[in-house]
């Protein structure tokens, strides 16, 4: 399925891009109560400054607390120290302008609702739209991900890649300023993943939301992001932030074969592998 064809089917004006606010992660720390009563530090001290409309990727070894950091940013979890700010506002609960895209689409899509009702679940309670307007908005977003014909299906009737498309359509139907993505491409097959990369870049270009992607896939991080933040082993600390400076639009094959891409990949992998070995030996 080509991205280009379903981009054409998209109606313009289905929700104008929102003027974004700066996302500030200010010295966030998070620890949990351990089983022995002690505290386990998941996040040491992380600060990030994400410009409106920027695409930031966060990579780190598995189990380093990436998802925890993203959940704190989303307001789904309170930090132990520090704070998150979106524009002028401190994030203390789920903010109206941020949406979290989960890795496990099968657990995040509600199986008792049709695809259309899943998408409407994102906005119908906030916007008092007529049922026609709500259905139109739902159709627009499903068309953007190429699933206009599947509105009346149930999620479990679709393939994994299609389900994650529904989850993406639902997330964007809330028209967030910030889209937080927690390894959303890691539970689909390799080709579907490339397809979803292109889709998310297209949608990001169109809607200009701020994107924060947590992933353990270095290629994915470089390919999608403006900047890649690298986290250390648990407790997570920011070790460095690399600007990719790769030209846009990016191409599934050419971009990945470019010198600049390979150089970035070399640098990040070397760094992460060295880190992993430190961890293994230490």
């Amino acid at each position: 399925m080509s991205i280009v064809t379903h981009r054409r089917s998209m109606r313009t004006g289905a929700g104008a891009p929102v003027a974004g606010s700066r996302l500030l992660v200010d010295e966030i720390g998070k620890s949990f109560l351990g089983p022995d009563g002690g505290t386990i530090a998941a996040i040491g001290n992380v600060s990030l400054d994400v410009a409106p409309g920027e695409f930031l990727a966060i990579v780190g070894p598995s189990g380093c607390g990436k998802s925890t950091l993203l959940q704190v940013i989303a307001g789904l979890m309170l930090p132990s120290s520090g704070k998150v700010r979106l524009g002028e506002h401190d994030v203390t609960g789920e903010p109206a302008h941020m949406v979290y895209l989960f890795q496990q689409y099968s657990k995040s899509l509600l199986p008792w609702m049709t695809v259309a009702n899943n998408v409407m679940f994102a906005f119908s309670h906030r916007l008092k739209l007529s049922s026609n307007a709500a259905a139109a908005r739902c159709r627009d977003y499903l068309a953007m991900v190429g699933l206009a014909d599947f509105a009346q299906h149930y999620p479990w009737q679709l393939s994994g890649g299609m389900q994650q498309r529904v989850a993406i359509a639902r997330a964007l139907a809330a028209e967030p300023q910030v889209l937080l993505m927690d390894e959303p491409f890691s539970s689909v097959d390799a080709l579907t993943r490339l397809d979803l990369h292109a889709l998310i870049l297209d949608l990001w270009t169109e809607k200009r939301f701020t994107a924060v992607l947590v992933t353990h896939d270095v290629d994915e991080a470089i390919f999608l992001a403006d900047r890649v933040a690298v986290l250390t082993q648990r407790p997570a600390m920011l070790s460095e932030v690399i600007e990719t400076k790769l030209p846009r639009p990016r191409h599934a094959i050419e971009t990945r074969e470019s010198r600049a891409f390979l150089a970035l990949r070399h640098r990040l992998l070397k760094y992460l592998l060295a880190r992993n070995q430190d961890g293994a030996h230490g």
Partner: protein
Amino acid sequence: MASFRRHVIAVVLGIAVPLAGLIALEIASRSGWVNPTFLPPPSTILATFWGIIASGSFIAPLGQTLLLLFTGYGIGCAAAIALGVLMGSSRPVFNLFEPLTELLRPLPKPALLPALILFLGLGARMEITIVALGCFFPVLINTIQGVRAVEPTMINTARTFGHGPMAIWRRILLPASAPYILAGMRISLGLGLILVVTAEMIAGSGGLGDSILSAQRTFLVKESYAWLVVLALLGLLLTWLFTWVERRLAFWNAPQVQ
């Protein structure tokens, strides 16, 4: 076609055993191996059963039993779901009620009948109460388990879109735990039928339980068995009905069926 034949064979086999049993009883009764006063030949019971059906005299007792059963069942299930959702989603509420429910749950519910008769008399109120009490616990236990088994990701999904606690209850916790709740309600329906018949036998104020016992007491043995057949068919019908409702309400729980 092969699947149709297999289906026919399954039905024939399924009917064969009860039919053989009936023929054996018929022979036993007619030959005098079993005292025909205690067990009349099934063919004569069946004739009496047809009489009850044809005359419409089954309608009043059946209607009364169903009314009591569904009133008690409805009250018991509704209360259990409400408390179960609370106990499943809140640790303090769970700690508050868990010892009490664990004490009352294993108690055989007919043992409560004497006390209930003292307080509520021998009428519909007592019968409805015992059914509600019996139906309450299986649904409560399953609702607690169902609510606890809800994927945290589903709740977080609702939160990220700004749904409040009430919406999360109604739109996530209830539907997500519906398969568990329905499984509990299936158990409760069987229990409810047992309890309503038991209570009717003791109360002696109408219903299928009363019909079975009164017929036996007045030496109308054939009638007593015929009412038993009515009761058996009612149980079968309720099971079918429930399976149908369950498939419609928790259709998404068995996607492979689709």
